[in-house]
């Protein structure tokens, strides 16, 4: 009659494959929210890694494609809530761009759910942790991006290379 509830956070062994998610967060809200999650000691999988930009409006389609190209299984873009943008309206531009992102991913056969745009304020550490766990769970269900990444690599029409990026690599 006892229930076997799997512990959250995947203690111990863990799955052989760990989803990799690139999070691109604005400095003012989402990055601060992610810091707050840390200060509150909330837990989420180590596969989610954050790159800081000043505003979510800075995120161009190339960044998203680059992430998938480099082997990410998901991309999370975080900005301030509508109306709260530090730069007045950068996040509205991001919202408009969301469609472009999605259409682009569609072209490469990447599931829409692998890309997510979330408004996370500096006070929403808990929301960030929830979103992070949710997204990784969803991506776990989808499985690794695998062959699509290969396709992306071949479709190198866009200049995704960071010149001099990783030196010899």
């Amino acid at each position: 009659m006892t229930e076997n509830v799997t512990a959250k956070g995947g203690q111990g062994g863990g799955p052989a494959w760990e989803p990799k998610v690139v999070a691109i967060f604005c400095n003012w809200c989402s990055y601060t929210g992610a810091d707050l999650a840390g200060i509150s000691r909330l837990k989420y999988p180590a596969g989610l890694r954050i790159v800081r930009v000043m505003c979510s409006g800075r995120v161009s389609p190339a960044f998203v494609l680059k992430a998938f190209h480099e082997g990410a299984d998901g991309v999370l873009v975080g900005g301030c809530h509508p109306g709260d943008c530090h730069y007045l309206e950068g996040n509205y531009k991001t919202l408009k761009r969301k469609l472009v992102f999605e259409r682009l991913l569609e072209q490469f056969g990447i599931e829409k759910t692998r890309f997510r745009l979330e408004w996370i304020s500096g006070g929403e550490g808990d929301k960030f942790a929830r979103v992070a766990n949710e997204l990784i769970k969803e991506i776990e269900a989808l499985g690794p991006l695998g062959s699509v990444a290969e396709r992306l690599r071949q479709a190198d029409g866009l200049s995704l290379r960071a010149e001099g990026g990783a030196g010899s690599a």
Partner: protein
Amino acid sequence: MEQAEAKAMEVIRQDAFDAAAFLDELASYPSGENIRSCMQCGVCTASCPLSSKMTETPRKIMEMIKTGMRNEVLASDTMWYCASCYACTVRCPQGISMAEVMYALRTIAMKTARNLSTSFYQSFSDTVRRYGRMHESDLMIRFALRTNPLSLLKMGPLGVRMLMKGKMNLMPPSAIRGAKEIARLYDKVAEMEGGA
């Protein structure tokens, strides 16, 4: 004399605390997960229409659970007084569903305890299994047979009046068409629980 003193104040040694197992057991029931957050405010007790009759108040039961007093909790009469009115539940400042905790305690106790309440719930369950629905007369007969057959006589006058008001059927009820389904559902659930 010595014995009386020993009774007056029972010292619970620190190493007697073994709350985790009991809390885990309760956590496998609905709403049993957040019992640890109880802050002992007593709103449950003071919202409960029946708590004045309990030997331990609901709040005290929570503290007993938190300190692992499984036997004492299951032996208490508190959960058998719960009428499932959810007054405690909607007011609990920590969002604990005390009504569900009471269900969980009853379900655990049902496995071993035998009292008026367990007999009633078991009789109810048996009636539903047999007919797919509840029938007062069948339930009351089953209940009386489990507890005190003479009590049927006491219930008599009320029963007669109910009959006369057309509020009760004396005739053996007919089962619903899906009665077999119901029986199979009971068996399946028993199998799932036994197999776990």
